[in-house]
């Protein structure tokens, strides 16, 4: 780049460069900062400013206070419930799977297949995943039809696949593998010697989990659950394709405002909702990072 061919190639002449060369060094990162400024920071600023601006461009708090309206507030409750339930189910099932993997051969094929598959499935979401579940549990889906032929009607009390219950089930499909990926390192940190020590002191399985492994794994488990919560809370495509009517979740509400006439009437509202999402996800991710740090201190 710019410094090419200057005598600086000689390491002896390298020390931090003269005052003249400093700007040239900074030029090397200019494209990156220009890009990030325009396509990441500018949109964020547009969000943050727009959330506190009315249609005429005057500062206002009305967008933020409007979130308190029942129909918007209930979408936050809906999002929270789906995220909490799918995070808990995903965390528990994922932890069990991770434990089944961790107790196997650390260099075995099984472990390799499961971790690779978890990497792939944690990534799997959105449109394709919804279609997969419609083909499985839709009214003419493979499993639905199979069970019906055997006398079990899973939709006897109405079709639940296309409402938040179905969405929660679908979310667990990417939550479990994500849990396996993030929780496995913590399980690997558990030493067999600790169990042996517990046993030689007369402790049983329950006591080992209650007083040794449990407290050690708790921060990791909690942190990973928070990550899963943020993961579900930010998801949009899956919900948008599955649930066609009603803004039962915050992302669906944002999309609805964004595309509708009412949204045009109060453009700051979608931005306020989006900003609220960013704030919630940021807080959750900070807590996750905090717990991760604690875990890495304990399990080495």
């Amino acid at each position, binding site marked *: *780049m710019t*410094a090419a*061919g200057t005598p600086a*190639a*000689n*390491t002896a002449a390298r020390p931090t460069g003269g005052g003249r060369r400093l700007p040239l*060094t900074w030029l*090397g*990162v200019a*494209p*990156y900062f220009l890009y990030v400024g325009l*396509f*990441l920071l*500018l*949109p*964020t600023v*547009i*969000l943050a400013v*727009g959330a506190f601006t009315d249609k005429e461009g005057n500062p206002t708090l009305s967008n933020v206070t409007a979130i308190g309206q029942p129909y918007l507030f209930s979408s936050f409750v809906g999002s929270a419930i789906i995220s909490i339930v799918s995070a808990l189910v995903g965390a528990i099932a994922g932890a069990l*799977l991770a*434990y*089944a993997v961790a*107790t196997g051969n650390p260099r075995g094929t*099984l472990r390799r297949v499961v971790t*690779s598959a978890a*990497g*792939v499935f*944690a*990534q*799997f*979401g*959105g*449109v*394709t*995943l919804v279609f*997969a579940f419609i*083909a*499985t549990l839709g009214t003419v889906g*493979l*499993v639905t039809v199979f069970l019906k032929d055997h006398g079990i009607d899973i939709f006897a009390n109405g079709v639940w696949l296309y409402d938040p219950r179905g969405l929660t089930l679908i979310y667990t*499909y*990417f939550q479990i593998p994500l849990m396996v*990926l*993030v929780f496995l390192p913590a399980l690997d940190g558990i030493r067999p010697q600790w169990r042996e020590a517990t046993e030689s002191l007369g402790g049983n*399985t329950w006591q080992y989990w209650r007083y040794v492994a449990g407290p050690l794994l708790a921060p990791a488990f909690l942190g990973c659950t928070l*990550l899963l919560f*943020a*993961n579900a809370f*930010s*998801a*949009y*495509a*899956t919900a948008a394709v599955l649930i066609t009517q009603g803004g039962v979740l915050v992302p669906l509400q*944002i*999309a609805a405002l*964004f595309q509708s006439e009412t949204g045009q009437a109060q453009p700051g509202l979608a*931005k306020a909702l989006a900003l609220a999402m*960013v704030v919630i996800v*940021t807080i959750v*991710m900070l807590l996750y990072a905090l717990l991760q740090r604690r875990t890495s201190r304990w399990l080495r």
Partner: protein
Amino acid sequence: MNRSRRLRLNIFRVTVFLAMGTFFLVPIAAMMEFSTRGRSDTGPRTMEAWTNIIKTPDLVAGILASLELAAITSIAMLVLLLPTMVWVRLRLPALHRIVEFLCLLPLVIPAIALVVGVFPINRWMRINISDSILLLSFFYLVLVMPYSYRALDAGLAAIDIKTLSEAARSLGAGWFTVMMRVIVPNMSSAILNASLLSVAVVLGEYTFANLLTYENLQVAIVYVGEVSATTSIAVAVASLLFAFALLMVLSFVGRPRERVARPEDPIPAPASRSLPLSDSFIGVPK
């Protein structure tokens, strides 16, 4: 470990693997089954839905657009991120934290929130630059940045770029030669890793395309699904298998190589060794 405990553990493991295997594989099998269904319940299996893919212009256009976007985004990602990261490591270490923070920032800004902020920028670009769907790659680059950054960062951490570049420079190489002939060949698996992740993210992207009213692969699948469920499920299976293949390649190839130049420390940081995927997948827009 005593006998009965081992037995219990093994029963537990088998149960978990069977249950999880069923939960994860049945939907994929169901998709394949669904996509080969005939017109009637009793009719024979047919590949009609699959042949319909190429007969549906919307789908073909969507597939091509998504493939082009994936290619442009991964190349742009490499061109933008890699030199910056190398430069920061070599010359501006003070910026390391800031660059890392900015690259990981999209993880806490859900795609659906970011798209609201991006909308005015996109409108301006459509009026003043071009209406082409390929413009989306400017926004997709932001979405892939955290995953690519982590992959590239792990690759850079595994080689001693300072020594490598000083050696090359003292032999008279310019910065371009250092990049292309010294650094890139030494971290090819990390580059492959970052590119495949970008491709997978772009091919699965729906939020931006839908809300900014562009028709990429995923949007086309949803449109077609309203007319013919079997055809759209066939495309979904195809795109899924393609993404799976990419990611499988990644999970097996994407490990840091053993025979590259490394820092003095014989054991690279365990975090970068263990699973190149693990953290990379967090928060993929769904």
